[in-house]
């Protein structure tokens, strides 16, 4: 029997029925719920008089529409208040484990799941959110689904899915000092294209991945959806296990030992064959930012904006012209000259403790540039608590950042934290789509360190130049 990939192993251990047309009915171990993608799922389920197959397989937390200030007050926006209230009512009626807004554990589903040990290696996990790929960092098979499929998971604990093709991205070379997981993710997306990995499950491997922290792995798997692939994953190793051990919902004692024995078997076999292989050598790569309206529009920070006229393909030329026009930028301009109005540090991509530490290390002893509004939004209440205990919050506040409560915030612009038309952000979030952070808003994606550098300089900035002597 030929070797199997990590994806193959988890997939085949969850197949209930193989329909022989490329699709299978697979068992879904766990389901994360938030307030935005589930109201219609509950309604449809209840209209048919059904209930949840296994309530304990679910965990619900409000994140998308919740305000990041004034948590002691009712939610001011009536629609956001109603949506958050609807989630509370739905989960109460069906006995779904729930983390309410006032709970210290509240936060973005993709931060909370791993943090609570709800996400475990080898499991299948679904959520009505495309960034569910994040959980693959723990060696889970995790993917985003729509509201109808949320309803199916709730009622049946199973989904009919097409088996993905497999792609291995082997990350090699010597990682430069300021090259973060976010930079590596954006470089991968630029290389493969914004929808280039559609139909694939991506496994990240190689020495650079093995050396990454869990937070970095989550950033990388999180961004995988921006390449079109629904699944990003990394085989569990000692770093995964030490991250998970002792988490509230992780197994312990003899059950932990038993689980670990199984999880150790999950890496791709040496002779496993992937449908596609890619090597990404990070040696000498510069930190990157996006310049356009797709996450594939990536350039090194020391580059100049592309001239669409140089693009031979008319469709690509038209897209570049349109992106530059939307972004209010002109060909030939240096990226480092682009002034920003807003800096956002947070999101399921970069809202973890390490991300806030990175931002604080740049902001320490500096000031947010005049005219720039900078906000830092922890990914969860526990991240916030820890950041405050470490003094990170004090550093960021002293530099002029607003220090907020946990939620999706300006990544998706549903809670009132948004760009005004024409405003430009340096953002650690995941999408630079037109209008993503508010109608007419202009988003440049980058790492937390680069976003903090933009905050203190007032423009897109090369972190290597700003930190010059600090080669630590």
């Amino acid at each position, binding site marked *: 029997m030929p070797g199997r990939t990590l994806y193959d192993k988890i997939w085949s251990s969850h197949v209930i029925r193989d329909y022989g047309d490329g699709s299978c009915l697979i068992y879904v171990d766990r389901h994360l719920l938030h307030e935005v993608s589930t109201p*219609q799922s509950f309604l449809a389920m209840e209209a048919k008089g059904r209930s949840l197959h296994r309530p304990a397989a679910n965990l619900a937390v409000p994140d998308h529409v919740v305000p990041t200030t004034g948590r002691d007050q009712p939610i001011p926006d009536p629609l956001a208040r109603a949506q958050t209230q609807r989630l509370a009512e739905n989960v109460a009626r069906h006995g779904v484990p729930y983390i309410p807004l006032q709970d210290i554990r509240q936060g973005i589903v993709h931060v909370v799941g791993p943090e609570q040990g709800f996400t475990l290696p*080898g499991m299948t996990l679904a959520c009505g959110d495309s960034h569910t790929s994040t959980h693959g960092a723990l060696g889970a098979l995790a993917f985003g689904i729509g509201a109808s499929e949320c*309803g199916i998971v709730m009622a049946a604990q199973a989904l009919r899915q097409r088996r993905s093709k497999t792609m291995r991205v082997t990350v090699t070379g010597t990682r430069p000092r300021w090259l973060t997981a976010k930079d590596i993710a954006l470089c991968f997306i630029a290389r493969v294209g914004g929808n280039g990995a559609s139909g694939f499950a991506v496994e990240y491997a190689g020495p650079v991945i093995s050396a990454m922290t869990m937070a970095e792995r989550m950033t990388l798997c999180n961004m995988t959806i921006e390449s079109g692939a629904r699944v990003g994953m990394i085989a569990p190793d000692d770093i995964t296990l030490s991250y998970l051990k002792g988490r509230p919902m992780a197994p312990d004692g003899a059950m932990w030992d038993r689980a670990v024995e199984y999880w150790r078997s999950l890496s791709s076999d040496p002779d496993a064959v992937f449908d596609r292989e890619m090597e990404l050598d990070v040696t000498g790569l510069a930190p990157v930012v996006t310049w356009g309206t797709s996450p594939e529009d990536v350039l090194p920070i020391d580059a100049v904006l592309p001239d669409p006229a140089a693009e031979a393909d008319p469709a690509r030329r038209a897209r570049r012209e349109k992106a530059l026009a939307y972004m209010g930028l002109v060909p030939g301009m240096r990226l480092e000259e682009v002034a920003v109005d807003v800096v956002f540090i947070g999101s399921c991509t970069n809202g973890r403790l390490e991300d806030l530490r990175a931002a604080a290390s740049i902001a320490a002893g500096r000031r947010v540039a005049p005219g720039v509004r900078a906000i830092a939004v922890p990914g969860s209440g526990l991240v916030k608590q820890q950041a405050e205990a470490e003094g990170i919050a004090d550093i960021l506040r002293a530099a002029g950042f607003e220090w907020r409560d946990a939620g999706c915030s300006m990544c998706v612009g549903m809670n009132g934290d948004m760009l005004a038309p024409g405003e430009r952000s340096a953002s650690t979030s995941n999408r630079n789509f*037109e209008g993503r952070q508010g109608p007419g808003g202009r988003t440049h994606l980058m790492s937390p360190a680069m976003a903090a550098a933009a905050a203190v300089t007032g423009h897109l900035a090369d972190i290597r130049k700003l930190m010059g002597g600090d080669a630590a």
Partner: protein
Amino acid sequence: MTPFSTIRSVAAHLPEPNIDTDIIYPARYLLVLDRDGLGDYAFRDRRFEQDGRPKPDFVLNRPPFDQARVLVTGGGFGCGSSREQAVWTLIGLGIGCVIAPSFGEIFRNNALKNGLLPIDLPEAVCVDLGEKAEAGAIFTVDLESRALLVDGVLVAAIDLPEGQRQALLNGWDEIDLMLREEGGAIAAFEAGHRVAQPWLFLETR
């Protein structure tokens, strides 16, 4: 869902790749708790000025394309978020079929759950169909006989797994079918899985 019946209509051409879910259905309207009647929000920031006036040059605001039930567009249509509103809003607008070189995977799944037919055709074919759409040609989407016709001429076969075709044509609710036909298999699998990986079944603390 409503059974899929043959569409005969002009087609609107949106000649642009990677039209993402934020363009199709801006996030701020995700606060609406309904799934019906969302057509007004479709392509909101492309179709309307901020004060609500329609943008006259946007294809879906121009007769006869304001009545189009078919979209012809670029690759990666529906990439981005998992929001099913991107499908519900197209249905609310009267769209029953989207033709593109490729689709966002989650969007494609969502479409099929709601009776919206995604048809993948090669880039060159889509470009050609886009030109025909702009000229006002009548598109016929006949899923019964798997035929896509333009002005009565067969241009492509509709390639869709038979199970999905039957589900669309009959308007089957997937979950009814799954619980009826696979309920026993799911329970049997779960019992074995509970033995193999018992740590997945611990009561959460």
